[in-house]
C-alpha cells in the first residue's frame, strides 16, 4: 500500500480539532520552518521536492514562489485557491472538511516562505460548512500561538482569513479570483503583469491550490529530496484523485504518482472497478476540461504501453491520443453512458460559466451548447461535427484566460474519439432519444501499430 502524506490521519477521530491534529505530529512543519529555516530555505525545499501545482496547470510550485517580486515596503500576499469547481473534482472539499489544520499549517509555512503578513483562503461560496470549519481551525491555531503576532516567539506575524466566493467557476482562474477577492466581478485579468508582480491590491501575490499548500507540510517535515523520491520522473510525490462517475467505490484517494491507471481503476484498494459489473466506456482523467478518452486509449498509450497516473503518461500522445492530469478529477463512464449527452452537458456548463469578457468564449460556448443540444435531441446535421470542431478551434487560444480552452477541449476530443457515436445520433435521431449507442468498439484492444500501418 502506498504511503499517505496528506491523508494518513484522515480517519483519526477528532483530527479536525487542533489537539488531536497536534498529537499526530501536526504543526511540526511550522515549528521546523519558523525556528530552524530561513524563508529562502523553505522555498528551496519546495523547489527540490518538484511539487507541481495541484489545481490543474501543474506548474512547479517552488518556481512560482521564486518569481514573487519583493520590493521594499510593499506588502506581499499568499492566497489559497479553494474555489474548487472543476466538474469531477472534490478533493479540496474533502481535505478541508476532514483535516482543516493541514491546510492552515501549510498556509503558515508558505506565508512565512513568501514573507506574507496577511493571507487569504478563498473558498467557493457554496462551501459554507467548510468555511465555518476553517474559521474554527484558524481560531484554534491562533489561540495556541500558531497565528497572530509573534508566532512561537519567532517574531513572525501572520493573520489568516477565509473569504467566501459567490458561485462562479471562473474565480478558480487565479486573476479572476483576485478580482473577486477585491469585491469585483470575476473577470480574469490580462497577463502580464502576473500576480507575482501585481496581484492582490496591485501587490506581489502567490495563488496556490489547497492541495499544493497542504503538500508543503510533508515537504518541510521530510525534506524536499525525500518527497521527490516518491512518484515517477517529473511527477513527484503523491496526488489526491477525486474518483467519481460509474465506479464501485467513488471517493478521494491519495496515490503515488506513477500508479498504473488499470490498478487505480480496478483494484479494491482504490476505485474497485465499474459499478454494477458494467464495462468501462470512457474516462475523463483530470476534470471536465481535459480531453475525454475511450477506455482503450485511456488504459494503454498509442504505443500499447500501460498508462500511468502521472502528468507525463496521461499526456502521452498529446491531444491526438492522450489527455492531461489536470486537477485529478477522475470521471469514469460505463457502457450505458451517452458521450453526446455528456459533451452537451459540459458545453452547457462552460457556456453558463463563461464570464463574457472575450467574444470567442462568450459566443462560442453558447454556439457549441446549441449545436450539441440539437444533436442530443435528434435534430442534428452531419455537418454539425465539423462545425463544432471549427468553433472549438476558434475559441482555443483566443481568450484572456484558459476557460476558452477548457470549453473547447472536451468538445473537440469527444468528436475526435467518438465521432461515430455523434454520427449515429444524426442518422438515427429517433433511436438516439430512446437508447444509447453503447460501448461499441471503445474498449476493444488497440491495433498494433505495424498492423494499423500495414
Amino acid at each position, binding site marked *: 500500500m502506498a504511503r499517505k502524506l496528506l491523508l494518513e490521519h484522515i480517519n483519526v477521530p477528532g483530527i479536525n480539532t487542533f489537539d488531536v491534529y497536534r498529537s499526530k505530529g501536526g504543526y511540526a512543519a511550522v515549528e521546523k520552518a519558523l525556528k530552524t529555516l530561513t524563508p529562502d530555505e523553505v522555498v528551496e525545499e519546495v523547489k527540490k521536492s518538484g511539487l507541481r501545482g495541484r489545481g490543474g496547470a501543474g506548474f512547479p510550485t517552488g518556481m512560482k514562489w521564486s518569481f514573487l517580486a519583493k520590493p521594499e515596503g510593499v506588502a506581499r500576499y499568499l492566497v489559497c485557491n479553494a474555489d474548487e469547481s472543476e466538474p469531477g473534482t472534490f478533493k479540496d472539499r474533502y481535505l478541508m472538511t476532514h483535516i482543516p489544520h493541514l491546510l492552515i499549517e501549510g498556509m503558515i509555512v508558505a506565508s512565512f516562505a513568501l514573507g506574507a503578513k496577511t493571507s487569504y483562503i478563498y473558498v467557493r461560496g457554496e462551501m459554507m460548512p467548510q468555511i465555518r470549519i476553517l474559521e474554527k481551525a484558524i481560531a484554534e491555531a491562533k489561540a495556541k500561538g500558531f497565528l497572530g503576532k509573534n508566532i512561537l516567539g519567532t517574531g513572525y506575524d501572520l493573520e489568516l482569513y477565509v473569504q467566501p466566493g459567490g458561485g*462562479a467557476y471562473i474565480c478558480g482562474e487565479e486573476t479572476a479570483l483576485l478580482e*473577486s477577492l477585491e469585491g469585483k466581478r470575476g473577470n480574469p485579468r490580462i497577463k502580464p503583469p502576473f500576480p507575482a508582480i501585481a496581484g492582490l491590491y496591485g501587490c506581489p501575490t502567490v495563488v496556490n491550490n489547497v492541495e499544493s499548500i497542504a503538500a508543503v507540510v510533508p515537504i518541510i517535515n521530510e525534506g524536499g529530496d525525500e518527497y521527490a523520491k516518491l512518484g515517477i520522473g517529473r511527477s513527484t510525490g503523491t496526488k489526491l484523485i477525486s*474518483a*467519481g462517475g460509474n465506479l464501485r467505490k467513488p471517493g478521494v484517494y491519495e496515490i503515488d504518482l506513477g500508479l498504473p491507471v488499470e490498478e487505480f481503476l480496478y483494484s479494491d484498494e482504490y476505485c474497485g472497478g465499474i459499478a454494477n459489473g458494467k464495462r468501462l466506456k470512457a474516462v475523463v482523467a483530470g476534470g471536465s476540461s481535459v480531453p475525454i478518452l475511450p477506455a482503450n486509449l485511456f488504459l494503454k498509450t498509442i504505443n500499447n504501453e500501460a498508462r500511468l497516473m502521472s502528468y507525463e503518461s496521461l499526456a502521452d500522445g498529446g491531444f491526438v491520443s492522450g489527455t492531461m492530469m489536470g486537477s485529478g478529477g477522475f470521471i469514469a463512464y460505463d457502457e450505458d453512458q451517452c458521450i453526446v449527452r455528456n459533451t452537451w452537458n459540459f458545453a452547457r456548463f462552460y457556456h453558463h460559466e463563461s464570464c463574457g469578457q472575450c467574444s470567442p468564449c462568450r459566443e462560442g460556448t453558447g454556439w457549441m451548447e446549441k449545436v450539441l443540444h440539437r444533436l442530443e435531441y435528434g435534430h442534428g446535421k452531419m455537418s454539425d461535427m465539423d462545425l463544432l470542431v471549427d468553433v472549438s478551434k476558434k475559441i482555443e487560444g483566443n481568450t484572456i484566460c484558459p476557460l476558452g480552452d477548457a470549453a473547447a477541449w472536451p468538445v473537440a476530443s469527444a468528436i475526435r474519439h467518438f465521432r461515430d457515436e455523434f454520427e449515429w445520433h444524426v442518422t438515427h435521431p429517433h433511436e438516439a432519444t430512446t437508447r444509447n449507442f453503447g460501448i461499441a468498439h471503445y474498449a476493444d484492444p488497440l491495433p498494433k501499430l505495424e498492423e494499423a500501418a500495414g
Partner: protein
Amino acid sequence: MLSVQDTNTPVTFSPELISKFADVVSRYPEGKQKSALLPILHLVQAEFGWTSVPAMDKVAEYLAIQPIEVYEVASFYTMYFLKPQGKYMLEVCRTGPCEIVGATPIMEHIEKTLGVKEGDVTPDGLFSWRGVECLAACGFGPVLQIGPEYTFYENLTTESVDKLIGDLKGKANN
C-alpha cells in the same frame, strides 16, 4: 404565507448585522473595504432571503462605493438571489458527474413533488428549486444543497428527497 419583501420597501440593517459587516471589513487593508462586498452580500441574503435593490443600496452606502458596483457583483455571481425565493431553495447539481448518476430524474421528481417549475416558489412560500452547476461533490452524486447554511444532501434517491421535503415542511410548521 411567508412575508416577502417588496422590492421598494426600504430595509434596515440591525446593529448585530452591522457588527458582522464591521468584522468582515477588518480583514482587509485600510481603504480596501470593497473586498468585503461578497461576504456582506451573503450576510444580507442570509438575513433577508435575497438581495433586494434597497438592501444593495444600503450595502453600497456602508462600503462607500457606488450602487452599480454592488449590482454588477450581485448579478454576476450565481449565489445571490435578485428576487425572493422559497424559504428553502433546493439547489440540485446538474453537471456531468452528477448527471450520469441520475441528477435529471431527481430534478424531475422535485418538480413533480413541489408542483412548481425551476425558479418558481410554491404557493405556501416554503420551497423553490433549481439546477446548479458542479458543487464539487462528484463522488457522492446526485447532490443538492440548501442555503443559507448550505447544508449538503448526498447520494440522493427519490425516497430521500421525499423525506427531506417532508422534514422541511414539518420544521417550517413547528
